[in-house]
């Protein structure tokens, strides 16, 4: 196996929404700066945006103020958000959307040129090609894009991140990329929990199945401080195909009904605000209806007319083509039959919720030389795609500023050899644990002991302690992973990353002894929200020498 060494100024790990935007931003601000984008798949269709997108859900419409926007996010997250981060995002939202429109994204507009609103903070886009548009803008810059190179670890000498290691899936090469600064933008983590679809449908997930938490895991392994992993995300979606309910509920104004046809939010959950309740209460109400025996629940699409139905289908083709297949039979037509909804398995994301790196307002992580943007960055929920672009802009600006006059650091041969041996190890073994076995074991542990879908997302201490014990055993077995080809090696590396992430997640779930966000974090043994004690961030730092996860609390800041 050959070693490919590349020197650059700024390395971007992950060529998704945030990574692409960061590359373009660096070029705009400093055209001479050398940039490398390390991308696991191909940047034209990778990450969360691979399928496309039909709405941008973070936008500041006329009549909204930055303060009202921040207050909305704070309310949705029961008082715990990094207001400094969310504020910085809100101020940049409209600029980045304008930038992406200039790149080529079609956006629905009024005759006067203003964007049409689709809900209070949302605009409707024709985003089937949003990812190719971003990628092609990157391809016009001198940035060097390494497609099909999977990041495995940061190059870290104990004081500073000075690059990253990667594995080339196509060429089988080991990559050593030295950089003055690294922006991590790998997205969140799916596949931690047993998925709601199994067998041949096991990858019909809400979130990109190949966002396996590599960025979290790489940060964890060098002791970067992480925040709010316990703030898991569970999406309320069209059952089985994961189509966004917002497209129907907001776009077509359909109501949520239970099996008896009742508007259950208004009938039974008025105390949470009925139809105006928080996102996680909407999910909890749907879970409760199921438990009580009034499920399944639906979005009532039977009131749609033919024009609205067609428009709805067009919106879904831009984002989630699967649902069109589901509807392509008379019995399943949405005007004839309401659309069944349910919760997905839990995911870890910093874009809908706030699991991720603990960062300062300029997007520096706690490790010098390492910056975070997008889903992998914590503390700023509901940033979605446009907020990720703003974060990419801020991280790029900071990285450029911080690296002025800096030179590259040397990488020790020994460190290269060690990482190369770690990465290649499963390929050297003739027999052992397969990636599928490891994945299924992890997902079973998390589902049953750490509040997966089969447990209605509920948690309590004794089960979590069992999850902790079982995950430690599983981690110790990972040295026995064995694979036969490069594709499977990537699967094996994903398993290792996911286990590192899951262990941190479980510690966060154990630590917060209250119920802060229903379903996302429901503690049966501490069922109340306790503002007198828990209006704090729960953070963690992994110690690679002792294999211990150290927990800490950080106060809310203004």
């Amino acid at each position: 196996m050959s070693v490919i060494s590349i020197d650059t100024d700024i390395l971007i790990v992950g060529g998704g929404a945030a990574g692409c935007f960061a590359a373009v931003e660096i070029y705009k601000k400093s055209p001479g700066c050398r940039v490398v984008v390390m991308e696991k798949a191909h940047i034209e269709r990778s990450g969360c945006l691979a399928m496309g997108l039909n709405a941008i859900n973070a936008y500041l419409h006329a009549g909204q103020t930055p303060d009202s926007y921040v207050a909305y996010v704070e309310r949705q997250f029961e008082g715990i958000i990094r207001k400094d981060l969310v504020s910085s995002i809100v101020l940049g939202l409209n600029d980045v959307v304008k930038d992406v429109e200039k790149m080529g994204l079609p956006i629905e507009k009024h005759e006067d040129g203003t964007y049409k609103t689709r809900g209070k903070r949302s605009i409707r886009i024709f985003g089937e090609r949003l990812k190719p548009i971003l990628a092609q803008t990157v391809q016009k810059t001198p940035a060097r894009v390494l497609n099909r190179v999977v990041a495995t670890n940061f190059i870290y000498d104990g004081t500073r991140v000075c690059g990253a290691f990667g594995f080339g899936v196509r060429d089988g090469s080991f990559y050593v990329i030295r950089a003055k600064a690294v922006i991590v933008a790998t997205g969140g983590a799916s596949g931690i929990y047993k998925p709601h679809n199994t067998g041949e449908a096991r990858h019909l997930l809400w979130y990109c199945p190949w966002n396996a938490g590599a960025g979290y895991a790489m940060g964890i392994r060098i002791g970067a401080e992480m925040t709010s992993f316990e703030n898991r995300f569970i999406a309320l979606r069209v059952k089985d195909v994961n189509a966004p309910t917002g497209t129907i509920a907001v776009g077509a104004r359909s109501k949520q009904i239970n099996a008896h046809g009742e508007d259950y939010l208004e009938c039974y959950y008025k105390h949470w605000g009925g139809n105006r309740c928080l996102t996680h209460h909407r999910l909890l109400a749907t879970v409760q209806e199921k438990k009580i025996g009034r499920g399944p629940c639906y979005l009532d699409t039977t009131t749609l007319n033919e024009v609205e139905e067609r428009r709805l289908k067009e919106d879904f083709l831009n984002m989630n083509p699967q649902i069109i297949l589901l509807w392509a039979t008379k019995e399943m037509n949405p005007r004839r039959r309401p659309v069944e909804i349910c919760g997905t398995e839990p995911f870890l994301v910093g874009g809908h919720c706030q699991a991720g790196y603990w960062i300062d307002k300029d997007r520096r992580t706690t490790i010098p030389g390492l910056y975070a943007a997008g889903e992998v960055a914590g503390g700023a929920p509901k940033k979605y795609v446009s907020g990720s672009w703003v974060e990419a802009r801020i991280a790029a600006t900071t990285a450029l500023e911080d690296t002025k006059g800096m030179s590259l650091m040397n990488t020790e041969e020994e460190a290269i050899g060690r990482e190369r041996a770690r990465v290649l190890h499963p390929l050297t073994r003739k027999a052992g644990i397969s990636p599928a076995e490891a994945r299924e074991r992890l997902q079973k542990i998390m589902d049953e002991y750490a509040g997966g879908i089969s447990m209605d997302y509920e948690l309590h201490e004794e089960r979590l302690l069992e999850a902790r014990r079982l995950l430690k055993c599983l981690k110790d077995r990972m040295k026995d992973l064995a694979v036969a080809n490069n594709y499977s090696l990537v699967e094996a590396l994903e398993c290792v990353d996911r286990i590192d992430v899951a262990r941190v997640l479980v510690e966060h779930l154990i630590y917060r002894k209250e119920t802060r966000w229903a379903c996302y974090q429901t503690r049966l043994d501490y069922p109340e929200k306790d503002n007198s004690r828990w209006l704090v961030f729960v953070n963690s730092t992994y110690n690679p020498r002792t294999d211990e996860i150290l927990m800490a609390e950080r106060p809310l800041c203004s």
Partner: protein
Amino acid sequence: MSISIDETICNGCKGLPEARCERICPGDLCYRKENTKAAIRDQSACWTCGCCVKECPVQAIELRLPFQICSNGSSLKARLKPDKTIWTVWDAEGRPEEFIIQAKWLKGD
């Protein structure tokens, strides 16, 4: 089954270093077989994102849902034009329905 590749239509993107579906699949699932036709290595790993369907210039690939999710046999194909995407969905009875949606392509068709 999540995608179905029609070998009578697929030309394996002859002359290119990789088949287009192989180049684009976000999960690295498509590859070229020895007979130069494209194939998917693991149906259960497919996200059903449709990227390969959109990328295929001869419309050899169709999107389907795994049988456990949907047993009606419907399928979906796409043709990408510089200013629009043309989708065709075949319903349970094999009747096609077409959708033309505005889009923008920066490179040539």
